[in-house]
């Protein structure tokens, strides 16, 4: 939860909503493949993380969910010989390839219009960014955000761009790509193609660099440093596919445009200047993913079908990304009315309902109440 000290009452509302969810929606819990080779972990409300757990089937997971009502549930993307042992002794066998697209990495222009800054010390909420809390002068500030339609639209576009690269360039078949809404402000993309399981961190880092458009060399499109500044010699493998094609399109060149490319480099001011600009262009064309998530082959990752305590929404599989509406399709908590105190001006859309709230006391359906408690913007009365 964003809110680090929710009131007793708020906490018990959230817990009962989560309990109800795990009772009613147990079929949403997706048992990962090769379940017995994975490590599980979960977070409990108000206490730490429990890790290195193993389950043999989805029934065992459900038993823990309804017994302990965890705030967040995780599962390793790695397969181990001994998943319950300490990290050094687990014996890594392989790991699913995963990608995380989160609105925090997208630098959206709408972000400031729906961000809040909450002081961890005194609880003061501000709508504008500041390093220091204006009421208590401390510097411990949490940021929270209520994604808008534009955020969701942009996130989906980014997911589509990622999928394009994964299938067009890396040759991953569509049925090996699973898309999930993360349960908060992003999407997770899981690759089940077993070819990729064996790859270690470094190979994954290389994939990340590829997707993000990092470390491109101008030589790969034929611009080389020479005695008179630079010269053009296209690579033997050509420019017909992948990044080379994307760059060639962007620059409007082809394998027969030696002169054109040469002029272009000259106009930019030479090899170094052209290089600097190309690096930037390619970065802008790249997909914005969180590199750490993909590179880390030992992490535990939010489990599909469980609730995200940053929002009370579900991490949910999107079978059709275009029509998927996270604020509707992943909002699965009940709608019993709750008395609430709203602590900031918020506009919000959930389950097809629009809530236009100011600082006030009001009654809200459970799903909206939990959402705002998790976001740190309201508490139960």
């Amino acid at each position: 939860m964003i809110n680090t000290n929710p009131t007793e009452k708020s906490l018990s509302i959230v817990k009962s909503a989560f309990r109800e969810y795990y009772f009613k929606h147990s079929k949403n819990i997706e048992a990962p493949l090769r379940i017995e080779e994975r490590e599980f972990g979960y977070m409990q409300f108000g206490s730490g993380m429990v890790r290195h757990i193993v389950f043999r089937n989805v029934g065992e997971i459900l038993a823990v969910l309804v017994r302990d009502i965890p705030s967040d549930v995780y599962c390793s993307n790695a397969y181990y010989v001994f998943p319950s042992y300490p990290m050094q002794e687990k014996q890594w066998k392989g790991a699913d390839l995963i990608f995380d697209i989160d609105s925090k990495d997208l630098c959206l222009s709408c972000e400031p219009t729906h961000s809040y800054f909450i002081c961890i010390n005194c609880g003061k909420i501000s709508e504008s960014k500041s390093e220091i809390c204006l009421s208590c002068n401390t510097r411990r500030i949490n940021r929270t955000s209520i994604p808008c339609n534009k955020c969701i639209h942009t996130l989906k576009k980014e997911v589509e761009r990622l999928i394009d690269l994964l299938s067009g360039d890396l040759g991953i078949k569509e049925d090996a790509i699973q898309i999930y809404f993360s349960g908060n402000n992003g999407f997770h993309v899981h690759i089940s193609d077993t070819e990729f399981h064996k790859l270690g961190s470094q190979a994954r880092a290389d994939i990340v660099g590829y997707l993000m458009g990092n470390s491109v060399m101008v030589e790969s499109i034929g611009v080389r440093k020479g005695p008179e500044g630079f010269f053009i010699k296209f690579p033997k493998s050509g420019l017909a596919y992948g990044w080379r094609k994307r760059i060639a399109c962007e620059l409007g060149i082809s394998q027969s445009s030696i002169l054109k490319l040469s002029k272009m480099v000259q106009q930019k001011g030479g090899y170094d200047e052209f290089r600097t600009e190309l690096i930037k262009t390619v970065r802008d064309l790249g997909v914005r993913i969180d590199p750490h998530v993909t590179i880390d082959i030992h992490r535990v990752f939010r489990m599909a079908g469980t609730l995200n305590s940053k929002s009370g929404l579900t991490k949910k599989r999107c079978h059709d990304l275009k029509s998927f509406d996270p604020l509707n399709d992943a909002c699965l908590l009940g709608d019993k009315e709750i008395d609430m105190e709203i602590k900031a001006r918020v506009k919000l859309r959930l389950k097809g309902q629009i809530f236009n709230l100011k600082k006030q006391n009001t009654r809200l359906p459970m799903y909206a109440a939990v959402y705002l408690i998790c976001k740190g913007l309201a508490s139960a009365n």
Partner: protein
Amino acid sequence: MYFYSSLGYLLWILSIKLGTGDLAKYPFLNEASNYIRDTHFDFEELNRPEIEHIIYRAAKKIDVEITKGIIYEELEKYEVEILTFLITLIMVKSIGLELVLKKHSLLEAIRAEKFLIEDLKREKNQQKRRLLLFKIFEDLFKFKVDIDSENHQLFKVKVTDYLERAVQFHEQEWKLINRLVHKGYVYLDADETVRLIRSELSTLIYNRVKSMTFSSLPKAIKSRVDELSIKFKPMYEVRRIYTTTDYPPCIKHALDVMAIGENLSHSGRVMLATYMLAIGKSVEEVSALFHKAPDYNEETTRYQVEHLAGSRGSRIKYSVPSCKKLLNENLCFATEKCNGIINPIQFGRNK
């Protein structure tokens, strides 16, 4: 059993598929080693006078490799090459110095690499190219390489197979983004394709030697082995100056790479040298670290280290690259102990 004739018969059978010239160039192929296993040949055969010049040749080959650090390029007819290969392995095993074995394996791989690139580039017969690809990549390393259907000078390999091998290279050009990638395949030219298997090839040769067993050496070989041992022992009994100190992971990794006689990238060498100079090692000590590099050349190494130390040319003393820079160059192997530091030189300081 008459040595030459039984060997000759087997080689003749093999040469129906691959030319005899190929077996001479690639004596590590399964075919050649099967022969050695299947014929149960008697070691004493190696004392025969007609083998003498091959023993001499094998010893010379090892000597050139170890003392000069270069490959032995001379290519003889296949009977001679296969026997030379076998005898070198026996000799390297008997010399019993790990670093000699490492270096020999690496140089043998580089040597085969040269022939292979040539063959893949020049050979007109597609059937034959395919057979070579199959025999060397797929049969030995389970690595499937295809010839591109449009451009026969290009080879396609699966992205995952590429990544697994290319991560060992630190140069930017090996990054996936600088490759032609399409529908799950990476397209490479002959040089690049072959470069990908260098370390596997050298490991293969290394393992062949490691798994060899024989009780006694034929006299003819023993005397050569003794000569070489006397010559090499002092070269490899350098003080291992780094075993006890707690170096940062990036430096440890670089030292490990050097220790097994593998190639360290240019930036890796700069890092290692500047670090060692910064902690107070002398130019001599630092130059000595590079002595095991496959491309070691005493003069240039010393020159470069002096340059970094600021005692030459520009007189600017080079500082140790920052952790950030090293991370970018794939030289960082951070562990928990690296938390909070921005330059390797700070590693382990405040404890």
